[in-house]
């Protein structure tokens, strides 16, 4: 029963969220060769310890979240919007400057 601090909704029970897989994967472009897709789809790490995961606040704001979590202790080390567009929009809303690493378009590489 983890408590996940959704950046939009605040701390919420784990039961409101859905785990959607490994967020450390970079998916290849659609026209990438077969081998590149095989690697992305089938070759997965199964970390014992710190992992980067994709979650959705399904029963809340429906944001996609990049969560850094220790798979051994369930300790959550960080939560941020998975979408750089969303992160930028929320930062702009809050009157904050956008960190250069989360500018829209970069994650599409």
């Amino acid at each position, binding site marked *: 029963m*983890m408590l996940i601090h959704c950046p939009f909704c605040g701390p919420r029970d784990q039961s409101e969220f859905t785990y959607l897989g490994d967020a450390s994967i970079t998916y290849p472009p659609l026209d990438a060769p077969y081998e590149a897709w095989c690697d992305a789809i089938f070759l997965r790490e199964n970390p014992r310890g710190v992992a980067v995961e994709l979650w*959705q606040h399904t029963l809340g704001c429906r944001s996609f979240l990049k969560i850094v979590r220790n798979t051994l202790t369930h300790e959550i080390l960080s939560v941020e919007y*998975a979408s750089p*567009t969303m992160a930028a929009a929320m930062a702009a809303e809050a009157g904050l400057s956008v960190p250069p690493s989360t500018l829209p*378009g970069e994650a599409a590489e």
Partner: protein
Amino acid sequence: MSGYRLREGGVVDRTQPIRFRWDGKAYTGLAGDTLGSALLANGIGPVARSFKYHRPRGVMTAGPEETGALVTIGKGARREPNAKAPAVELFEGLEAFGQNAWPSVRFDLGQVNDLLGSFFTAGFYYKTFFGITGKGTWEWMQFEKLIRRAAGMGRAADPADMAKDHDAYDVIHDFCDVAVIGGGPAGLAAATEAAAAGLDVVLIEQDFALGGRAIGRDEIIEGQPADAWIAAQEAGLASARVLRRATAFGLYDTNVLGIYERITEHEGDPDPALPRAAIRILRPARVILATGAIERPIAFGNNDRPGVMLAGAMERYASRWGVGPGSRAFIATAHDGGHADATVLARAGVEVTVMDARPDGSEAAEMSRAAGVEVLEGYLPVDAEGAQAVSRLMIGRAREATGAGGIAVASAERDRRADCVGTSAGWSPAIHLVAHRGVKPVWNGDLGCFLAGEPPAGLALAGSASAHWSTEACVLDGRAAGAEAVAALRGSAAPQRPERVAPLGAPMALHEVKMRSRKLKSFLDPQHDVTTADVRQAAQEGYRSVEHMKRYTTLGMATDQGKTGNIGGLALLADALGQSIPETGITTFRPPYTPVPIAALAGRARGAHWQAIRRTPMHARHEAAGAPFTDAGAWKRAWYYPGPGEGIDEAYVREAAMVRETCGIVDVSTLGKIDVQGPDAAEFLNRVYVNGFAKLPVGKCRYGVMLRDDGIVLDDGVSWRLAEDRFLMTCTTAEAAHVMVWLEELLAWRWPELRVTVASVSDQWAGTAVAGPRSRAVLERVLTGGDVSDGALPFMGVTGAHLAVAGGVVPVLIARISFSGERAYEVYAPAGWGALAWDALAEAAAAEGGAPYGLEALGALRIEKGHVTAAELDGRTTLADAGLGRMASTKKPFLGAAMMQRPHLQAEGRAELVHVIPVEDGVRFSGGALLCDPDVSMGGNDGHGVGWITGVTESPVFGGWLGIGFVAGGASAWQGREILVEEPVAGRSCRAQVLSAHRYDPKGERMHA
């Protein structure tokens, strides 16, 4: 038994009698009693029969660690077996029953098992009943039924009773700064300390009273008599939340506590509006475990006889409940503690003898003597004698020095009159909860107990849970733990915890007393009838791991989970294996600490509240038409609309034929509907679907199929282009939620550069499909605006229009789409107008010779047409398998395109979509049937068959039974050959023909008409 109420003392209200019934007879206890203390006070015993040997058992402890007095509480739907009498709060009208005996616990025919006891040793059942006739498992299963009836732990409430009437439970989510588990001296001190600092404190106590072992105790705590001190601490907790009758049954990751909180369970006449109990999921910033310690018994001959109990329990009954456990007591102890207990009993007027196993006199022994207690140093209990309860005790001295293993070999010296015997081998800190966090217990030889290893962040132990044995030391440690929590949350400096205070005399390891001359029946786990001999036998047979020994002997696997007996068991195993306790280790502590009703975990989520029910806007209309409903996920869908005298078969066949002949209307509101908007909407769909959407003109819609990353079909549906930058995507009822998440994920995570947003509008639109040759005429009857002529609205055209309904005009969206294979339209009205739109369309359909049709007819029509649904797109199907291979675009990349090329998915002879019809008339088969090749051994594919059926219907078009499914190689491979349709579970088999799934109007002339 020989218990009785003392003339004075105890924290019970002697002016407030409480009437209860035991085995049908009326008795009286006092306010403040437990069922255990009330049974003892009334001299009732034995109160139960044991699990395997049916030996008489009495009250053995004074808490939830009880191993003897397992009783059944209540009747009918509220019958609860295996309640531990010392943990049941007495209430007016309580009804309790002895269990596991016939005809009664005093005279039980099952006792014959005890005479055969030497046969019923560890592993007896398995060794004896496995393979007598070489049939192995089957035979064991037959014997097991008989064994389970003979051996038992009481009977749960009858499911039929519970279906009529069951208790309500709640689940509560809660938060606090500091949670203190245990309301004994240490817990009270910690909680008051934290509350005084202004923190939000929750104190959790399993008992109905605070104070723990200090209740009723004749001692001074921080300058006050114990009960006054407890009251003062309670007053200091005014700002805290004190949960009495609440058991913290589990401690989970990040210090989340699972708490079982009795709300009306202890009441004779509960408020029906209140739940029986609640599960509280508490998330504290910090946890202090002041869970106390549990006493360990000494095993000796017949140490399970009623009258034999823990020494500390005897003290509790006298001090807290004013109950004398007997009038001639013996206490066997291996540490100072037994002397204090003996002193309390002596002051209560009980004639007491203390046998201190330690050979040389200790200071504690002198204190006992001063209190008028007979002290026998170096003496041990050997054998408890008596029929229904202990009446004499054989005592003796160790023939040789007792080793570190704690097994004393004694001679029988004196046979003494005794009606109660208390033993104490020492105390085990209750480290269960910290162990739930994965912290390994560490053996401490000096203290003679397991301590918790280093606890994780935010978690601390206090008091006797951390092996502080005196009340004074517990209070000091509790105060320090409270201050430590305050410091941690306020960022100030933490105080030093006090050192452990050494006892007057060093404790001695003592787990069992045995004799050279004869075998004694000595119990480690009375609840499961596990003896010391069972543990030795397990070791002899090679069960060297403590976890294996536990499972072989079932030591500690009963409802008490070995709270008192496990340490003795592993010490005996260590001794038998010639190794130390740390080398032997301890079994894993797992939640729950004490049993939790499954119903409590479910809370309100049961029956109709198990999951949400989704009803379409037209639900009441279907109900009014007498349609039964069928479940489609959480949706209720109208199944069929029975005419006079019609069953389901007559109704759906009529409805399907009607659609082909004239027209029908069907509620399709359950389809997933996603509004896709943004400048890149077309590009987005073009990437998601296998076929092209970029060039789809506004005012047109297109059938699309989307794949998963791995190349398997995810879903299909029709997307309508409402504007250059706007689509209305529909998806199947089954996959709607999944597709929504998928699209959101793609936009948030993979393609954030696309300027697109998606919103689920499934609940915003009510959909009615109008199908059949007369469908356009139906629309023309009700439209007040818009043009549905074939020129304006051709096949796969989309238009806005207005529909005349009762009391107004509704704007609608209409697309000319067909699932049935006939000319057909889907009409979407705003959800609030859905029922009125349905009424108008139903009236118009009736005028054209049609009527509503249900999900069963919808299925019949699509099976005839060979259209796929979620039954076919089941997560294994490729585009080609579904007969849609040609849809994949070669001009653009799309999701799943690369993985679709996996060799296995491209292999020859994969199962393809087909129609299957029985060879003989009147024969039927069902969905899920296997298709087998009659010419191949076991039907092909090593008995898995060469295909399967996904849907069946009576087909008005083809006349007869029709199945749709998948067969290796598809229809062409089976031309001129018969196949076998096998349903081994139903015991059915028939011959069938495999045909193309695209036989009905293959050129689409009716659809495009």
